[in-house]
């Protein structure tokens, strides 16, 4: 399959008063056409900054995408486009679903108007056409009585309905890539199940790729084809969803998987990862995970591990692997 989005050595730094925060530090990955890529990691690992960098929505200053970074989308070099060209891509070819359905809709515009906005701008539709298409989109995402809801304001909708409306906006221009930044975190489990099913269904209908950013490993297992695991601004492991869950390699991935309570964990102690995420102003030297790693070796404190290829589309960034002979 062809690569729809390819990111090479992405570095997004924030220049704050206290110092430079390397929120994303040399991240490389790709999204193929028609697949769902999961981006997993704890808060502060740079998942959302990666996503906003792709759309070039990083506030500058204080944020800056460094020169050596490369983002190629559908043959275009995103970082070299003018702002005008970029605007044609946002919401049209790449669209985004945000975490907070409560705050990402404008409270003073009708739902129908908010969906129409993208259609009028990008598809050059007339107001009337756009409104009809909006109603159709609302029906597609499973909102009952779409004609009536299009005429309502966001406050009269529940959280799940708002997230559906957000998805309708995001999909209205048939984007090639949909970035979903924690789309279900603010929702209850039963609503979360509805939204995830809806996204899977729609992905097949409109044949879009999805970049699913989440910290919920259950959501990843249910929706994604491939997964990248991020820690402190770096990709530590990459692989298809089966190998990540059944044969995780990086100690961080292993720790993360072991710390979720399951039906077998009752009465036992959970394997937690000791300590907490490092301060981004003061990253540890060497591998960024070593202070919390239970397999840390002297070399981990000195040098940053390279990305080691373990197989087709399977990489890990850890000194435990790749050394001939002594690798486990």
């Amino acid at each position, binding site marked *: 399959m062809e690569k729809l989005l390819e990111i090479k050595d992405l570095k997004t730094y924030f220049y704050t008063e206290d110092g430079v925060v390397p929120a994303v530090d040399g991240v490389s990955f790709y999204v193929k056409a028609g697949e769902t890529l999961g981006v997993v990691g*704890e*808060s502060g690992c740079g998942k959302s900054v990666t996503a906003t960098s792709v759309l070039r929505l990083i506030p500058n200053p204080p944020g800056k995408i460094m020169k050596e970074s490369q983002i190629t989308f559908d043959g275009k070099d995103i970082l070299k486009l003018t702002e005008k060209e970029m605007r044609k891509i946002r919401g049209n070819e790449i669209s985004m679903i945000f975490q907070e359905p409560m705050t990402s809709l404008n409270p003073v515009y009708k739902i129908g108007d908010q969906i129409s906005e993208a259609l009028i701008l990008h598809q050059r539709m007339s107001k009337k056409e756009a409104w009809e298409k909006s109603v159709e989109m609302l029906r597609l995402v499973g909102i*009952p009585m779409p004609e009536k809801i299009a005429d309502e304001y966001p406050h009269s909708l*529940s959280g*799940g*309905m708002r997230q559906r409306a957000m998805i309708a906006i995001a999909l209205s221009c048939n984007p090639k890539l949909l970035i979903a930044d924690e789309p279900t975190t603010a929702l*209850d*489990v*039963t*609503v*979360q*199940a*509805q939204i*995830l*099913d809806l996204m899977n269904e729609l992905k097949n209908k409109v044949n879009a790729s999805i970049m699913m950013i989440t*910290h*919920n*490993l*259950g*959501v*990843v*297992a*249910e929706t994604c084809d491939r997964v990248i695991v991020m820690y402190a601004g770096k990709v530590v492991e990459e692989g298809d*969803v*089966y190998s990540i*869950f059944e044969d995780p390699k990086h100690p961080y991935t292993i*720790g*993360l*998987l*072991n*710390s*979720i*309570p*399951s*039906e077998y*964990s*009752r009465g036992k*102690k*959970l*394997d*937690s*990862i*000791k300590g*907490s*995420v490092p301060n981004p102003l003061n990253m540890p030297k060497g591998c960024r995970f070593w202070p919390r790693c239970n397999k840390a070796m002297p070399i981990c404190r000195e040098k940053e591990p390279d990305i080691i290829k373990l197989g087709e589309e399977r990489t890990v960034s850890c000194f435990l692997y790749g050394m001939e002979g002594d690798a486990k």
Partner: protein
Amino acid sequence: MDKLLEVKGLKKYFPIKGGFFNTTVAYLKAVDDVSFYINKGEVLGVVGESGCGKSTTGRAILRLHEPNAGEVIFEGVDICKLKGEAMRKKRRDMQLIFQDPYSSLNPRKTVGDIVEEPILVHENIGRSERTERVKELLQLVGLSPYHIRRYPHEFSGGQRQRIGIARALACNPKFIVCDEAVSALDVSIQAQIINLFEELQEKLNLTYMFISHDLSVVRHISDRIFVMYLGKVVEMAQSEELFKSPIHPYTQALLSAIPIPNPRKKSTRIMLEGDVPSPVNTPEGCVFRSRCRYCMDICKKEIPQFKNIGNEHYVACHLVDK
């Protein structure tokens, strides 16, 4: 086993004001006729979607929200009837841990002040003894004694939650309500705090009421679980039994909606239609009937009784009677 706490017919209605004279136009039934009990040394999990009344239940039994009706019997005394000083003394035994570790600590006070305050209020001991006690508490929850002079902003989310726990433990309580105590934390930190809760329970012989919307966390920590929907308890059972053989249609749907962290297991979901109805005008009869797959005629008329179907498994559903 001894019952530490027994709640009978607990009700908490919030008035909704409106109209010209700002009169009460309706009531929001946050907790409507809830009964349950907690044994000594047990962990009771409370699950349900947002707005189902789980947090209000937790607060009403501590009388942080004054219940409108019902009894809360703690160690044989109905605490709803206690007044003034007697109630204040009882509060030593019952504590609450909050969800958001960022807003539940006063940013202008040092960690030492925060943890010391309950001791200052409830116990008549001197300053140096108090400081000793605070240091002990900090060590108990996995912090260091030198943290005593620091301010909350210097700590990470997981550490702040530990401070909140130390404060709750300050007066040697018997019973702690944990209201979404691990929900705001990252997975790896969440596991640390869950382990801490379990360690403390063993060490100090605590009883928890563990409120959470995260079902896998509740399953891990609880001995018994009760499920709430729209202010009512719909099912209560031993933890494993509830997950293996849920009886109420709502519990079945709720459990099937949990995403399983195993890509080979595709869960068969029971999809619930629509959203939770507004708690202001709840449906007549069974509260769940508007979203239930098995809704019958009787469900529209009669409120189902909450009954024991054997082995301490309680359900409120008309299906059981058939």
